[in-house]
């Protein structure tokens, strides 16, 4: 049996992605994992799913590697927004989209009702638990998100190493979206002082988080994700307007997917060929 590429991620990687804002937009074009598969002449198993968080991406990737490691040549992952989470694999919580939906903004399209219903809980989680109870205040949220993501990255890197599988990852959807985080927190706690997210505070939060120096940066495109530290996320700096579906829908269009595939292919050549 020919080995395959295992691709995992959110809507930026999902083979069956459709635009909620532009339902008539033809999204049947090849997504970046398929394009990469053509370049490397390898079949692709794409387990990405729209709306999911990094928990889901991690769980499903570990599951496939554990059960099919003998058949996997390469694992490619596009991590998503750090504030998303899920309860088991049951429901996907996206506090940002919930806020958008509540305020009838475009980004809230297609968001399930339970997200909106859970807004009091999000407020409790972010404001009471993670921010007001921490000496780091607002930067604690970035710190927690970074620690969570880095621990997932290291575990999957070690898992691939143990099974002799190649791996390349990036943050596609934007794990450390500063303006998004600010919008989210202000919406959750209108009575509080404005939350200030500078590029410096984000960089410091990342560098001070556990595991930062244990990540194998060679397998990551854009490490360490923050521009001040010389990194990038695809959603901020790489995907220009011409590479997206349209206003209000920042998902990559056909050309966007081709560009992402090029990045993964070049990175593959750089470290594995």
């Amino acid at each position: 049996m020919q080995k395959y590429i295992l691709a995992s991620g959110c809507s930026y990687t999902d083979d069956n992605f459709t635009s909620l804002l532009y339902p008539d937009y033809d999204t049947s074009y090849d997504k970046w994992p398929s394009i990469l598969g053509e370049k490397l002449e390898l079949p692709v198993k794409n387990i990405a799913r729209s709306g999911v968080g990094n928990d889901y991406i991690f769980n499903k990737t570990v599951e496939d590697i554990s059960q099919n490691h003998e058949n996997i040549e390469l694992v490619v992952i596009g991590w998503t927004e750090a504030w998303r989470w899920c309860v088991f694999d049951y429901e996907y919580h996206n506090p940002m989209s919930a806020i958008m939906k509540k305020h009838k903004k475009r980004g809230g399209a297609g968001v399930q009702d339970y997200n909106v219903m859970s807004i009091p809980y999000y407020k409790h989680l972010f404001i009471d638990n993670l921010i007001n109870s921490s000496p780091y205040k607002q930067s604690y949220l970035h710190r927690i998100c970074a620690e969570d993501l880095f621990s997932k990255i290291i575990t999957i890197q070690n898992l691939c190493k143990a099974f002799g599988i190649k791996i390349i990852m990036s943050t596609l959807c934007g794990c450390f979206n500063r303006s998004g985080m600010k919008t989210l927190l202000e919406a959750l706690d209108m009575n509080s002082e404005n939350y200030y997210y500078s590029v410096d505070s984000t960089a410091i939060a990342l560098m001070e988080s556990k595991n930062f120096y244990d990540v194998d940066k060679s397998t990551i495109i854009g490490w360490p994700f923050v521009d001040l530290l010389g990194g990038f996320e695809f959603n901020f700096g790489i995907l220009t307007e011409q590479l997206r579906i349209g206003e209000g829908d920042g998902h990559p269009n056909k050309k966007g997917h081709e560009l992402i595939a090029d990045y993964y292919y070049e990175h593959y050549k750089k470290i594995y060929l």
Partner: protein
Amino acid sequence: MHWSLKKNMGSKSSKYILTCGCSFTDKDYEKHTYVKINYDPFPKWPELLGKKLNKPVKNIAISGASNDYIFRLLLSDILENHEKIETVIVAWSEWTRAHIYNGVIERFDKPRNSFNMSYLILHPESKKYKFDGHEFSKHYWAGKNYLDDVAESTLRNMHELQILCDKFNINLIQSQMLNVINPTVFDKKYEELVGGKEKWHYFLESLAFNKHLIEIKKETFIGWPGVRELGGNALDYFLSKEDRLNPVEGPLRDTHPNEKGHELLSKIYYNRYKELYL
């Protein structure tokens, strides 16, 4: 009954036993308990087992941990230290616990690193949190697929742990320490929120037909599959009132194992270890 999974133990003599679980396994339970009573520290079952086997033990259990979190702690340690690990022993917790952001300290009313959908139903205070805990968890219980995912999540963790230990030639003993789901949530009193006995039977069916079930080696699992209706047992069932810290109803009630309870648990693990690996 005698199972023999004896491997080449000679080269494993200097390796350690890795244990993980929730508060029933936590070596520092006294520090983490919410019951306002002071206990003198006493050895927990992993330490007692280590003495019986004359082997070093690394106990990474944490009070309040969900099964997903327990799995991630084990996965991380095994991947980093597999050459030093002789045996992994896991004591799985309640299946309805979930964690957020790598087990960050979560506060509903008290510090914890997971939230428990059963607890949110049963705890009278949960309606008084800054959000309505009943309302939040009700939504999950009302969904049919929720219990499928509860079953899938823990069984997948059990199966993946087994694959990993096989890969690295590490001995493995799994066990279900607590009830898979607190049975009280299926009482008539909570029927409107949870769905009553019918929901429990649905869960059993989901568990029985889960794809991971047949993959897990039952001989390495004490009380497999941890549910009485399916012929198994949780270790908690074996603990009598005398084996618990303070079983008397009231604000100081604490059903965690006392010193005697931990001794009993260590004997159960020792016996299975002996049957499998000595």
